């Protein structure tokens, strides 16, 4: 039986890699590997998962240096010889082992005004939104985000600028800027402007490269740059 040499981060911010030997299977995901270690070798290993079928995003980790959903990453796709390195997501505080503290990630989502603010009441008629309007197409391109944090973990501007809201929060803000039912456009554009916002994006495109749902936050952020600039030129910022 082939054995994988799996190097796993143990500890918190301070810690180190520990190596485990895991039997290699023909069809095996990285999450299978982590689960095997925790069940049969070392029960003290902490990690997150939920659906294990690529729907929830909870199992995101850094595999051989790249942020991925471990349940949807085949070992054969990433293994180097017979070695894999598994670490927690980058750019987030480490709680323990492979578990990160995602409060900062979601707080930035809130600071980008990534929540819907209605411009109507229950007394008003239904909003009529044409599904083929440019705004709706732009919004649809970004609404499948499940907040897994892979883009945030992949972004170097997040590493270099602690205040940067990050690709997920900005992508969400863009979907709402394009939502004709939303009534907080002005506040939202003010929230996403500035060097904690869209202007800090330098189009590295690591977010778009790594997003497991094939969302392109770079495009959303470019849209925010245009919307914010237009507002500034009109004196509406």
């Amino acid at each position, binding site marked *: 039986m082939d054995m994988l040499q799996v190097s796993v981060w143990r500890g918190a911010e301070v810690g180190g890699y520990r190596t485990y030997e895991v039997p290699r299977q023909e069809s095996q995901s990285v999450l299978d590997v982590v689960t095997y270690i925790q069940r049969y070798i070392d029960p003290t290993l902490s990690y997150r998962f939920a659906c294990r079928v690529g729907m929830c995003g909870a199992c995101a980790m850094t595999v051989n240096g*790249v942020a991925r959903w471990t349940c949807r990453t085949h070992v054969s796709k990433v293994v180097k010889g017979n070695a894999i390195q598994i670490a927690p997501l980058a750019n987030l505080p480490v709680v323990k082992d492979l578990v990160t503290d995602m409060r900062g990630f979601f707080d930035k989502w809130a600071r980008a005004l990534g929540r819907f603010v209605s411009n109507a009441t229950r007394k008003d008629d239904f909003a009529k939104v044409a599904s083929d309007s440019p705004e709706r197409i732009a919004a649809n391109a970004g609404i499948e985000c499940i907040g897994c944090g892979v883009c945030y*973990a992949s972004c*170097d501007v997040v*590493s270099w600028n602690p205040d940067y809201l990050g690709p997920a929060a900005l992508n969400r803000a863009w979907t709402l800027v394009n939502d004709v039912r939303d009534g907080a456009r002005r506040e939202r554009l003010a929230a996403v402007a500035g060097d904690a916002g869209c202007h800090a994006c330098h*189009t590295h495109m*690591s977010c778009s490269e790594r997003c497991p749902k094939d969302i*392109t936050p770079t495009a959303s952020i*470019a849209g925010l740059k245009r919307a914010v600039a237009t507002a500034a030129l009109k004196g509406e910022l």
Partner: protein
Amino acid sequence: MKNDYRARNHPAWWAFLVHRLSGLALTLFLPFHFWALGQALQGEARLDTLLRWTQQPLVKFAEAGLVLLLAAHLAGGLRLLALEFLPWRGWQKSLLAWAAGAAIAAGLAFALVL
């Protein structure tokens, strides 16, 4: 935890790095360029002395490098303007290739003219 080179190993990231480093190099070169041209204020002979210095092979090589940096920064910048202002399409990677090609072409043109 911090990312390392493995997270950055994709074309758009290299494009960013080339753009930033070429911009930095050009910004550092500019004061010297302005000073050199300003030498003409002291007359043609002064400018001529400087220009003869630039005929040395090593300087010519450096100049070719500068032209390449300028072409690369321009091409990368045009790519960014397209990404930020034009409707988003799937051809960004090709755009990068065109930008790189144009930059190399300009650099070669200069090198050939030498």
